[in-house]
């Protein structure tokens, strides 16, 4: 066993060195590509949920469904065919970077729930576990913060309990977050990280009685101690906060509240090694009576620049496989843009094959045979190339 391991490591080093050397000498694209493929890719999922109580109008990711009747303002002149049956709204999803437009899928799911809370529970969990936290717990990696919530906004009914030893950690300010990860300025007031880990372990022990007697109300304190201690034991990371602030146009602010800052913090957590990142936009997404789609379009226009920045920058990370999802608890229905019984999500990622399994009817409905939400999470695990897929078989065959 150890001999095989030894040979494998040596072969890998020799092969990489040879590839690097030859590519330098001959400029060989073949060797460059072989070397690039040898870089391990860390899977990362960003889920953007539209609204604490919202909806994702399928005019954006099933745009051709509505052109005949002109519902939600769809017309032949404002849609873009990305191929393999996927037609999107030009001004929003059609404005994404070229990488996204060639690696985008619409994934449909039916949950038969018409109320926000019930639909949120259906798309995010199985009644007990949060699918996102569950996925984060099986994706591997060595980061202490494996599942991160940008800011403190979540969908209205959102299971938060830890799954498989992974808890949801709120990122409310990038400055203190960078300090916790070891990337902040060091001065005499900065505690030594090893001593701090010991001090917090002691604080955790001295808090044991309170935590035991208040398992729910002090549950986040318990998880906070465990994850902060683990964070302090990891190697320190450095980050370029100014570059993030500039890229996302948030000035010198570090607070994670507006959508731009949530995307900046999401990129920070991609770099920090998180597995699953969740960002909820608290804007105007519960767009009842929005028959011409104007309100939904205004909301999308507000968030698309930050999403485009995130996708454009993270798709260039050679050592990351970043999958970006736009979703809500349901589509909007026709007439009157009310609540639908299913949802079509947008998925962008390196191993996403362009196409759709979420094309709706002209009445904005998905077919009764559309898979359940758990199958959507199985698809995400598949395109993430997660080492484990806890969600069963993936019926969405849009995988590169």
């Amino acid at each position, binding site marked *: 066993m150890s001999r095989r391991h030894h040979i494998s490591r040596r072969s890998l080093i020799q092969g990489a060195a040879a590839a690097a050397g030859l590519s330098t000498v001959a400029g060989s694209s073949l060797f460059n590509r072989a070397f690039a493929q040898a870089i391990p890719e860390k899977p990362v999922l960003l889920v953007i949920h539209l609204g604490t109580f919202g909806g994702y109008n399928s005019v954006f990711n099933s745009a051709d469904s509505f052109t005949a009747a002109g519902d939600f303002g769809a017309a032949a002149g404002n849609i873009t065919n990305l191929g393999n049956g996927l037609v999107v709204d030009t001004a929003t999803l059609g404005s994404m970077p070229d990488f996204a437009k060639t690696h985008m899928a619409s994934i449909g799911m039916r949950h038969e729930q018409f109320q926000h809370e019930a639909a949120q529970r259906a798309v995010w969990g199985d009644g007990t576990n949060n699918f996102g936290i569950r996925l984060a717990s099986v994706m591997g990696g060595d980061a*202490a*913060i494996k599942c991160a919530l940008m800011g*403190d906004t979540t969908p209205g009914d959102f299971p938060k309990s830890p799954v498989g030893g992974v808890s949801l*950690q*709120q*990122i*409310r*300010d990038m*400055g*203190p*977050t960078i*300090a*916790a990860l070891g990337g902040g300025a060091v001065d005499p*007031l*900065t*505690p*030594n990280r*090893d*001593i*701090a880990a*010991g*001090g*917090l372990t*002691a*604080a955790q*022990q*001295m*808090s044991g*009685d*309170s*935590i*035991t*007697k*208040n*398992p*729910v*109300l*002090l549950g*986040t*304190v318990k*998880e*906070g*101690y465990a*994850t*902060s201690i*683990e*964070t*302090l034991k990891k190697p320190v990371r450095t980050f370029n906060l100014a570059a993030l602030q500039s890229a996302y146009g948030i000035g010198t602010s*570090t*607070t*994670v*509240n507006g959508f731009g800052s949530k995307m900046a913090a999401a990129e920070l957590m991609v770099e920090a090694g998180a597995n699953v990142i969740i960002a909820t936009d608290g804007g105007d997404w519960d767009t009842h009576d929005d028959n011409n789609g104007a309100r939904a379009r205004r909301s999308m226009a507000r968030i698309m620049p930050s999403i485009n920045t995130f996708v454009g920058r993270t798709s260039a990370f050679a050592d990351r496989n970043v999958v970006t999802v736009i979703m809500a608890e349901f589509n909007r229905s026709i007439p009157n843009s009310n609540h639908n019984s299913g949802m079509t999500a947008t998925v962008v990622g390196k191993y996403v094959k362009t196409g759709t399994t979420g094309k709706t009817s002209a009445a904005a409905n998905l077919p009764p045979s559309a898979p359940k939400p758990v199958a959507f999470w199985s698809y995400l695990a598949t395109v993430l190339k997660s080492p484990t897929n806890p969600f069963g078989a993936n019926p969405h065959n849009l995988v590169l």
Partner: protein
Amino acid sequence: MKTKSIRALVVLLSFVGLAGCAGSVSEPEGTGGPLGIDPKTGLPILGDDDAPAGRSYKAFGGGTLGSDRISGAAGEEMKRVKPYSALVGEYARVLGKTPALLPTFAATFSEPPARWFFEPEASAVSVFSAYRAAFQGCLDLTATDAAYATAPTPTTAATECGKFASRFWTRTAGSAEIDVCVNVATVQTQPETDFRRKWAYTCAAVLTSAGFLSF
């Protein structure tokens, strides 16, 4: 005529309401004592029928109004994470002044916008930030007192740990808690050579415990 009809309706509904309640009040529940003492929490264990002074009301559907009541041991789930607005005063109360870092942690401690309320939740970042604020405050607290001019020993650490706990938690620390604190002072801080900083680290551990961060 219309007013009379409404009055009649109100009177009728009142009778229906009274019948629905008064006719179905059962005897107070809870006749026995506690089933025992929970060794984990040290609190009495109450059986389902031992909820003190509880009454059960039959609902119109035949069930009881208390059927979905969540039961739990007495004394559990009484604490909350202190919100940022409370921490500002609390650090000043126990340390004599607010750590300069604290205002930079308002968002991290989930300070809500004006006229809004969020039930505060802790996180890895907020816990470490609390430790940073505590360490800064404790550096000031231990800067001049003669008690912190020499290296902690098991004896002096036990004394000072007890003082820290009384000051920060408003209660007397148990022996196990003192032992943990003494270990910080005499073992965990060994890499630190400055005696006063050793005491500051010790102080910070006590100040970052749930005894201070919750109420």
